[in-house]
């Protein structure tokens, strides 16, 4: 079978195992839903928030952040932990002894991230719309922005996740290494805490990492006009989003290629 056909077969297999793994299902797939529900409920007493004339519900404010968090979790957390586990439990070694190419293997991983991440984002948007009554944008340009930020963000996060999987020394330590990084990023990148309430020095630090840019791109889609005034330089800065994610995509790709081994390297 060709590399592509085998990659497709891997996507089916990987997606099947993703949904059969309770840990992944909760901490990667459902986590943004849980957080969206908690934040919407916790801050509902605040009423509407935002610049005068552009007020929205707190749930509407958190939706783009949770979509961004879902992209980060589906890519970085999911793959970094998953591949580190596969390295230590013998899965990779077994695959490395078969005629499966590394390219097909990674097509399977990235495809799985794509399938599950798309389902997650679609369900978040639907839940926000149907359950929380959030008004969705109607302009086609907004949905075009959504599409490219989503795809670029997801591919970048998948590659960063693959690169990060080389860091944990064992499968057991993988979650302990990866989850704090991912959690910290969510706190400083405008996912859990309102972006405009963070001090500018913290915003500058967050700007070094991809999540801030994904969240910013998603806010540009889902928040009404007037909110851009609360961003850095009072602009959505979509070219900046594209450049920052592009740089991280290349970094992730290079590190993935350099660090990947079917088995741990010889002593």
């Amino acid at each position, binding site marked *: 079978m060709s590399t592509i056909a085998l990659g497709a077969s891997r996507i089916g297999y990987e997606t099947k195992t993703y949904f059969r793994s309770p840990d992944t299902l909760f901490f990667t797939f459902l986590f943004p839903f849980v957080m969206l529900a908690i934040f919407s409920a916790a801050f509902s007493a605040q009423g509407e928030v935002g610049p005068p004339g552009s007020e929205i519900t707190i749930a509407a404010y958190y939706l783009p952040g949770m979509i961004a968090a879902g992209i980060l979790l589906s890519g970085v957390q999911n793959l970094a932990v998953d591949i580190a586990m596969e390295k230590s*439990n013998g899965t990779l070694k*077994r695959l490395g002894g078969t005629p*499966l190419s590394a390219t097909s293997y990674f097509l399977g991983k990235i495809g799985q991230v794509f399938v599950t991440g798309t389902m997650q984002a679609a369900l978040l948007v639907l839940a926000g719309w149907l359950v929380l009554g959030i008004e969705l944008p109607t302009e086609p340009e907004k949905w075009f922005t959504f599409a490219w930020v989503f795809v670029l963000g997801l591919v970048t996060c998948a590659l960063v996740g693959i690169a990060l999987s080389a860091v944990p020394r064992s499968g057991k330590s993988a979650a302990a290494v990866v989850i704090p990084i991912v959690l910290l990023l969510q706190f400083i990148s405008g996912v859990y805490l309102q972006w405009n309430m963070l001090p500018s020095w913290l915003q500058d630090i967050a700007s070094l990492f991809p999540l801030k840019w994904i969240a910013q791109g998603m806010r540009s889609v889902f928040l009404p006009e007037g909110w851009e005034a609360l961003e850095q330089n009072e602009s959505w800065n979509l070219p900046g989003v594209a450049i920052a994610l592009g740089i991280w995509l290349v970094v992730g790709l290079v590190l993935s290629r350099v660090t990947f081994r079917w088995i741990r390297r010889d002593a």
Partner: protein
Amino acid sequence: MTTNDVAVRVRELRKQYGRKTAVDGVSFDISPGETFALLGPNGAGKSTTIEILEGYRSRTGGEVSVLGTDPAKGGLDWKARLGIVLQSAGETGLVTVAEQLKHFAGFYPNPRDVDEVIAAVGLEPQAKTRIAKLSGGQQRRVDVALGIVGRPELLFLDEPTTGFDPEARRHFWQVIRGLKAEGTTILLTTHYLDEAAQLADRAGVIAGGRLVDVGGIDEIGGAGARVPLVRWRDRDGGLREERTQEPGRVVASVVASLGGEPADLEVIRPSLEDIYLQLVRSVDPTAAPEEEVLA
């Protein structure tokens, strides 16, 4: 250099981990269709040797050819001709036996029929069970099934029956005999010497990173190691034994001299295990190469 009449050719293989020498000048050949057992205590260099042949590890020195290819340069086409059963792994097993085999069969150009493979390893009742829910021995059979589903020309079996009950082991031997009959070349490592005696045509014994002996399963250790032992008690109850090529004659003369049936009479032919233990004990891992005990 390499011709088609050897499946595996190893010459002066060396592997160094830092200053420690794990494999120190090992040479052997495996002919096509042959089953070769690599025996040796833990840490002797068996697994390192086998992982070099499988292409997992690089070597420090020597020549290796597996199915005509240097494993260090083996591509996907080469891997498609191998079957590898590693020492047991701890995979998550979220798919069923049939799902896993169907998926792996798809990697190979000319795979075996999945249902036949499942039947061959005796897992038909468990075909729709998730691998995580199987017993250790059943999971091991899945490993074996995954190793043979690609219809390999050369099959590596690294301690395949660890954790099997005696019945499962005998069933497994039948499976391997079936593969042998189809002409599959097999490289086996095992701690069960009766398994090696049952399955292998030839064996090599590794100790301290060196090949101590290599030969037919009924020749290894040399003729001297196979001399039968006659053991009996004489009149005052003392245990006597005599190594002899003519046990019948010795027994006859003992009976004659005792004037009747000797107590606790035994004629013992050294098993492969006895010979192996003798070979391994005779090797001091730090000994100089000249002290090697080659038969």
